[in-house]
């Protein structure tokens, strides 16, 4: 039976993921138009973001190419219907509103009647007329519709049903009823989520479909590895989904989200300190704390907060205090992770910090400084942490006879069992990599390859790539830099995590022991993956596609 199933699984997975991937990559949202910036005797600029820089530099949103205007002259931020905040960014010739010179770095509220003067040029901000608003809305309706979720849902359900049968075929009496019921629960939650959202007028569920599919593979792998732990995994998944919905609602209100950041910093600091004090050392890294019967990995949850803390609205990006605050917090996080000896996670935080800093400032010299400091730090880590050094020494040599059963043990087994799976896999429950330590977490790439085949494994990696590409594509229609940074931060975390996980397991990079988003077994990691999906949803500017985006009226 497995012989036939293997083909069906691959066909279903390809259908589910390719439809979702193609739909995500082929739809593009037409930007919303919030008003017009009219230059006297000159051009008429549509304002497509909430946050805009006016200036001479090409990288400004409202580009007025006059020598009397500074590169980044002033900030124009939407504050509501016909309500704009204007702020001079310390320009050379100053900004005037109704003849009054603005104090640099002070906020002023203006509306459609007010006359702005910069470098001798007068301009006004005007509302979109009713007709234009209707036209814009009409244009947005012409955007390609996201794919309807129903066929994909049915395909995932079929995949889940067959997975249950296959697990029984593969594991026999070792399989437990609770493990199989967990997959049924996931299926029900998936239908409930989509039907509820659809009833609320939502569309565009590709990202959730991808996440539900990856979660199904997660439960299948967990069931194959240890049937007794599937219920816990499933509960973590429900918490993650709930958290994602909560974050999406929360993100609708930008001001509220901004205010919550100091609280998140406090909570993160406390969580990491608790981890440091009460943490359990497990296999080199002290990144677990035990709460009752549950073991929790605080650094995974801090990841979610880390991205929000790093995000900022455009105005904040010109505020040095905000930047220092973020850098200080990041340093604290990485120091804690170093003390915990969690090299992999530290690397994820570090890369995310670099990318977010780059987005915030784009200042390469500062990045270089940070990079150098971190490089030095890394070298020290190499010197002081022999086990990290040994991982680096095996890198690229895992098949050497003296490595293959020593420092390269995990990698050679990953590749050997993975290749044993061929393109179609041996069937869920039939794998043997499970006998190797961390097979269902750090070596998940090999685990999935052995049981599900190379094709499905590649598709899973492409899912992560697609989420990231989609995030980058959709920020073009974004409202605030806050969402841009959220999406890029989350994309970076997913990408780096996937790279470290996959490349480490197959010897393209030293093994660092991190999880594959959504797929690796591990409650906290799964919660974090689902929660971070909210950040991707927040960039989905397709009409009605995201709960995280408040409707236009």
């Amino acid at each position, binding site marked *: 039976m*497995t*012989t036939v199933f*293997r083909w069906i699984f691959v066909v279903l997975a390809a259908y589910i993921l390719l439809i979702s991937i193609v739909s995500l990559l082929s739809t593009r949202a037409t930007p919303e138009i919030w008003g017009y910036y009219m230059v006297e005797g000159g051009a008429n600029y549509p304002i497509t*973001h909430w*946050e*805009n*820089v006016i200036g001479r530099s090409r*990288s*400004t*949103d409202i580009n007025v190419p006059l020598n009397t205007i500074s590169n980044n002259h002033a900030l124009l931020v939407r504050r509501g219907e016909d309500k704009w905040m204007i702020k001079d960014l310390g320009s050379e010739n100053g900004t005037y509103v109704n003849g009054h010179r603005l104090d640099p770095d002070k906020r002023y509220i203006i509306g459609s009647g007010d006359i702005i003067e910069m470098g001798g040029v007068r301009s006004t901000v005007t509302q979109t007329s009713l007709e234009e608003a209707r036209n814009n809305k009409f244009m947005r309706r012409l955007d390609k519709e996201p794919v309807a979720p129903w066929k994909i849902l049915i395909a995932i359900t079929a995949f889940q049903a067959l997975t249950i049968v296959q697990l029984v075929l593969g594991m026999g009496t070792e399989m437990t009823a609770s493990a199989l019921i967990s997959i049924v629960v996931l299926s029900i939650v998936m239908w409930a989520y989509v039907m509820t959202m659809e009833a609320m007028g939502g569309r565009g569920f590709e990202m959730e479909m991808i996440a539900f599919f990856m979660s199904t593979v997660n439960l299948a792998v967990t069931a194959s590895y240890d049937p007794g732990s599937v219920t816990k995994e499933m509960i973590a998944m429900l918490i993650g989904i709930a958290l994602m919905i909560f974050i999406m609602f929360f993100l609708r209100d930008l001001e509220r989200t901004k205010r919550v950041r100091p609280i998140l910093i406090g909570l993160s600091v406390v969580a990491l300190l608790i981890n440091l004090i009460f943490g359990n050392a497990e296999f080199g890294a002290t990144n677990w704390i035990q709460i009752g019967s549950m073991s929790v990995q605080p650094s995974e949850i801090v990841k979610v907060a880390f991205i929000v803390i790093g995000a900022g609205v*455009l105005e904040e*990006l010109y505020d040095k205090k905000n930047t220092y605050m973020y850098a200080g917090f990041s340093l604290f996080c990485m120091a804690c992770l170093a003390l915990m000896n969690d090299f992999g996670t530290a690397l994820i935080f570090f890369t995310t910090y670099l*990318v977010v800093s*780059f*987005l915030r400032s*784009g200042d390469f010299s500062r990045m270089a400084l940070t990079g150098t400091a971190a490089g030095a730090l890394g070298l020290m880590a190499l010197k002081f942490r022999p086990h990290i050094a040994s991982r680096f020494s095996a890198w690229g040599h895992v098949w050497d006879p003296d490595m293959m059963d020593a420092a390269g*043990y995990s990698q*050679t*087994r990953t590749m*050997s*069992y*993975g*290749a*044993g*799976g*061929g*393109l*179609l*896999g*041996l*069937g869920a429950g039939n794998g*043997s990599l499970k*006998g190797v330590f961390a097979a269902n977490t750090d070596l998940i790439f090999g685990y999935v390859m*052995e049981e599900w*085949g*190379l094709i499905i494994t*590649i598709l899973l*990696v*492409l899912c*992560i*790539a697609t989420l*990231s*590409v989609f995030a*980058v594509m959709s*920020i*073009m229609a*974004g409202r*605030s*830099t806050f969402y*841009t*940074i959220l999406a*890029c931060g989350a994309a*970076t975390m997913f*990408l*780096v995590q996937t*790279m470290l996980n*996959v*490349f480490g397991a*197959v010897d*393209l990079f030293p093994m660092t022991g991190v999880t594959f988003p959504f797929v690796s077994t591990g409650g906290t990691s799964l919660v974090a993956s689902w929660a971070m999906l909210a950040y991707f949803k927040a960039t989905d500017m397709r009409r009605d596609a995201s709960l995280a985006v408040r409707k236009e009226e």
Partner: protein
Amino acid sequence: MRKQEKRAWICLAMVIVLVAGLGVFTFRFVKHGGEWATFYGNTQIYTDGQINRGTITDRTGTELLRCTKDGFVYSDDYMTRVSTVHAVGDPKGNVSTGAISRFKSQLIGYDMLNGTYDSTAGGKTISLTIDAAANRAAYEALGSRTGAVGVYNWKTGEIVCMVSTPTFDPADEPENADEMNEEGSYFFNNFLSGAMIPGSTFKLVTSAAVIDTMPDRDSFTFDCDGVNQLGDGDDTKLTDVYAHGTVDFREALAESCNGAFGALTREVGAKTMKKYTEKVGLTEPVDVDGIETAAGTFDFPSDNDVKLSWAGIGQADDLVNPCAMMVYMGAIANGGEPMQPTLIKSASFLKEIAGGKSLGRYLDAETADELRDMMKNNVVENYGEENFAGLNIYAKSGTAESGGVNSDAWFVGFTDDEDAPYAFVVWVKDGGFGSAAAAPIATYVLNTLEGGY
């Protein structure tokens, strides 16, 4: 915001790195997947370091080895086990030419689509081209002597008999391999991995050179006095067993006259000898389904007539691999174009029809025909056709002086029957005279193959 939008390219750059890495891995997967999957660490297919699935049979379907989760199960028959161990392999992997180690991925049944997935749970069956009965016959005929017997179908390339002695019982492999090897290498496959002095069998190579380069060879004669002094002193003799008297080219081969062949070699010259040795494939390894045989080595000095003469007679520094010699016999039998030897029986019907894979042209068809004729003459004039009843045989014997108590005996050649187109090589260390010691072994094995015994 445009600045931030533009800077988001950095995420795309990471996507490219991820996808590129995945591409590199996929490339490696395609290229090395078979090696990875058959790595001994894979417990799907290895139990305690031994392959746990797959069956090896001989060409008739006789089971030689079954790999199970409880270990290797060899044939019940002792003679079958010891005579096929060099083809099949041993549990400890000491026999490097064994099918267990060489055809691992076929045995496991790895392919890229299915990986090691096995719907039958018993692994794949690979049929070797060898005939267990012929192997037993060869082993029986060799007795306790060290030697090698190889026979292959010169039309299809299938090796039907491959035996190397000394040998051992793989079902009862001793713990201490060194102890076992005191009397010589039990694990060593003389046929595939050996290189030994060819003796007079090499005269078939010299003859090919003569045929191609001496148009006046029919008028060649030599007066053999049994000593054939070339210069002064003992070390310049081309001794023969007895004085052959006056011989022509044909008779020189039939009588295997060293004096005459020394003269022919000198006439042909060092350069041509070297060229012909290379041309007939004796200096390169033969590829047998990925197993490379040992390569022969030769030295034809242009400034030393005595040494050159001995080299043309198959002595001096000459070393030949038995398998390569067998392939040369196949070349003569097949009009100058030998088939590549193979050990795995093709499962494909089409391939069976198409026949073997040619190794290219070794000799011109006319040259091959003349050699063939002379080899028949050897049998008629020297070895006696009555000794090969029922076989249409063409052959050359060899008696190689290797410094042992006795000479090493060789008998090489082929048969040409519609149903039995076999090229063969027999080598017996310390066997004595080739025609006396090695020829009967060849006869016994060939008759077994043809159902004569």
